[in-house]
């Protein structure tokens, strides 16, 4: 299954590129989400809230 012949390096490099970019995107999205949530929590701790914050969001 993993004996990919004389062009194996091209195949592995392609998959490595996809893993790197997709992994990078997922990490960026997760970290960005956490950062925005942290900022919102900070503002809430200072008493700055949305008018609708009483409702479930």
């Amino acid at each position, binding site marked *: *299954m*993993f004996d*990919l*012949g004389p*062009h*194996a390096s*091209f*195949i592995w*490099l*392609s*998959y490595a*590129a*996809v893993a790197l*970019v*997709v992994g990078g*995107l*997922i990490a960026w*999205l*997760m970290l*960005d*989400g956490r950062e*925005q*949530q942290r*900022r*919102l929590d900070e*503002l809430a701790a*200072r008493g*700055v*809230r*949305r008018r*609708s914050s009483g*409702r*479930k*969001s």
Partner: protein
Amino acid sequence: MQTLTQRLANPTRFMEFSGRLLPWISAAAALLIACGLYLGFSAPPDYQQGETVRIMYIHVPSAWLAMAIYSVIAISSFGLLVFRHPLADVSAKAAVPLGAAFTLLALVTGSLWGRPMWGTYWVWDARLTSVLILFFLYLGLMALRASLEDETLASKLTAILALVGIVMLPIIKFSVDFANTLHQPSSVLRVGGPTIEASLLTPLLLTAAGFTLLFSAMHLKAMRNEILRRRVKALQLAEVERAHTAQLAAAE
């Protein structure tokens, strides 16, 4: 009766809905990609391309997404300019970096597939060049939005550029038909049905479906992040305004 897009026009409702949907879409994407790659690497090598055909399972879905994501951006831009849907700009903004990433992957994996098959990493032919222009268009959309401080103006101008840029999609799609190119013509979405052998086609369809769900999950997450970012900005502005009003009141 409200349509789904009307119901989700409320960002709070969208956050609830997307929060529930996200884990399921992510799991389905992982499952489909894993099954597709397993079947893809178990299938016999192509009679002409040998083992390099394994690159197809990531190159074709990336290239398909490069164009599909641009369609999402164009539809969202239309939704912003014509219907002023509250989430249209959030959707367009969130999709652009994802589209740029998948277009880059289509270019890189295509280039790595081209070297052993065509004897070169790159040729300036219609298909490769038009996809490169699409990549620059994605970068242009990001640069235009980042260059304008007024967010409303930035959204509108970016939407107009996105709608103008949709001309690239038929050019890319039909570039293999009207121009001389090393790139093979369409072999899946074509009149008369696919020309690929079933043992190679099935894993390709699975990974294509998996990549599409992967994008859907990443798009939902990016939209959720953007909604939070806008909430943070609105609250920060409200805080500054409140402090300013209090200062004025104290001075009086």
